[in-house]
């Protein structure tokens, strides 16, 4: 029908779909799933770094870290707002999250046992996220694309701060240098997994690319991330734990080893080191805050009533 043609025309000319536009139900559903997953990742992602706010080793780092985790809350807020334009509510999505019915990025199921992890998350995890997200600034759904523009700007700021923390630590004591290397060893493979399974095992990619929701394949983004990160690691003075990592002049890219996809799927299925803990934390905050949200609603109703 005409609606479908109109929709496909907008997609074809790389224009934005807006909330008032008609869209196929599957497109809407896929978008909600993807944006919600992204919003949940921001919110869950507050935890592994947030745990270090009270232990940041300098007041300057404490301020940087607190502001960063606060930005993540802000990102969650924009993204939940984007899903609301598709007819959902933040509360519904939060409930889906804490009941385990919607996912978030598996990277946040890895623990952060050292302060160097704050830097590594900034450098590698935010770095990988940016590779994933920059193309989404051109995504076909307007509110999502605009949220992504703002988010990407802040993320690259966070990435630079993370890198700068690691660089400072690498100029510090031998112990600090060892902390950085140990942290990078733990996060390198999980960061590579952030791009998702190999293209052959990623059945939704084709449809998402056709709809302009996704712009690049998992493997292409992963390669781009590796190519970007290796020189940065050299500049820092750290290595990645991959014996197969080397420059391939023929391909004009770095070759690298295969992530442990068994571990990936195991973490996705809920068996990572921190899955339970992350969800429990969120659930506790949500449950503990219920009385406040109820009070705010009740107060607003009374104010309206008094206003007559």
């Amino acid at each position, binding site marked *: 029908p005409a609606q479908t043609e109109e929709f496909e025309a907008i997609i074809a000319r790389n224009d934005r779909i807006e909330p008032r536009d008609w869209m196929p139900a599957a497109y809407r559903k896929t978008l909600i799933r993807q944006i919600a997953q992204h919003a949940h990742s921001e919110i869950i992602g507050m935890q592994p770094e947030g745990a270090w706010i009270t232990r940041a080793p300098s007041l300057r780092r404490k301020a940087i870290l607190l502001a960063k985790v606060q930005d993540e809350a802000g990102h969650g807020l924009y993204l939940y707002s984007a899903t609301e334009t598709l007819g959902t509510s933040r509360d519904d999505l939060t409930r889906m999250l804490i009941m385990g019915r919607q996912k978030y990025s598996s990277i946040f199921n890895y623990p952060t046992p050292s302060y160097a992890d704050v830097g590594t998350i900034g450098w590698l995890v935010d770095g990988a996220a940016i590779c994933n997200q920059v193309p989404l600034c051109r995504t076909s759904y307007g509110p999502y694309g605009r949220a992504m523009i703002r988010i990407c700007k802040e993320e690259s700021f966070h990435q630079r701060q993370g890198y700068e923390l690691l660089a400072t630590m690498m100029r510090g004591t031998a112990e600090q240098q060892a902390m950085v290397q140990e942290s990078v060893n733990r996060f390198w493979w999980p960061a590579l997994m952030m791009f998702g399974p190999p293209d052959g095992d990623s059945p939704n990619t084709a449809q998402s690319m056709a709809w302009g929701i996704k712009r690049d394949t998992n493997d292409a983004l992963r390669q781009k991330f590796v190519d970007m990160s290796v020189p940065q690691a050299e500049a820092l003075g750290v290595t990645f734990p991959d014996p197969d990592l080397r420059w391939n002049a023929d391909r004009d890219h770095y070759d690298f080893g295969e992530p442990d996809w068994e571990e990936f799927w195991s973490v996705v299925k809920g068996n990572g080191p921190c899955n339970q803990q992350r969800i429990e*934390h969120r659930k506790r905050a949500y449950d503990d805050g219920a009385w406040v949200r109820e009070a705010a609603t009740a107060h607003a109703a009374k104010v309206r009533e008094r206003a007559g």
Partner: protein
Amino acid sequence: PSALAAYCLMLGDDALVLSHRLSQWCSNAPDLEIDIALANIALDLLGQARLLLARAAAADPSVRPALPAGSPVPDEDALAFFRDGHQFRNVRLVEQSSGDFAATIVRLMFFSCWRLALLQRLVDSRDPVLAAIAAKGVKEVAYHRDFAGRWFVTLADGTEESRRRIVGAIELIRPQLAELFTDHPVEAAAVANGFGIAPSSTAAEVDTVVDQLFTAATLQRPQEPISTPEATPSGRDGQHTEALGPMLTEMQSVARAHPTGSW
């Protein structure tokens, strides 16, 4: 230490310790908006603390704790991370665990009303650095007070449970308020030297503001302890409650594990 340094430590430690307590809400707040607001307030107070601690060390370098030779730790961090509990000069009000959101709001409301009154007077300090810190702080703390006041009224008016919690929080905080308005010899010296404020001189104004908030919340103000004199030594003397030690242990753990580290 010089009276100026000692006075800056008091105001700086108040901000540092409450900032720490508020930052513990991060990722734990009732909703995202509150999470963001509390982080903002914690950041503001952290900023005030950094300026005040640096001013203390500049006014009298002897307040800076000894660190291993070659340690790159700046003054603000030496003071925050390498003093022991009895060297902290904050009022005891700020060191308690935050408790629930009602307790957080009630404390923040009293603290902000008091600190705003102090900072408003401190903009005329004879010490230009303190005056500048105060001028910046006034705008920040006015926002904190508005935030706390708005939630104070909301929770008092909201549901039976939220009102019960607010009333409980007021009752809990009551005995900790007298300390805020008790002049310490260091504060008296600060007044005499024209760079500081006697907290007792803010009591009447704070009282009025608090009264207005209680009226807006249709709450009975408990028998007022604001003018009660403190018998025992206070946080200003380095006498703290059991809450400060564990808080500092956590806060200082990484910094102390790497006394010559660069961050």
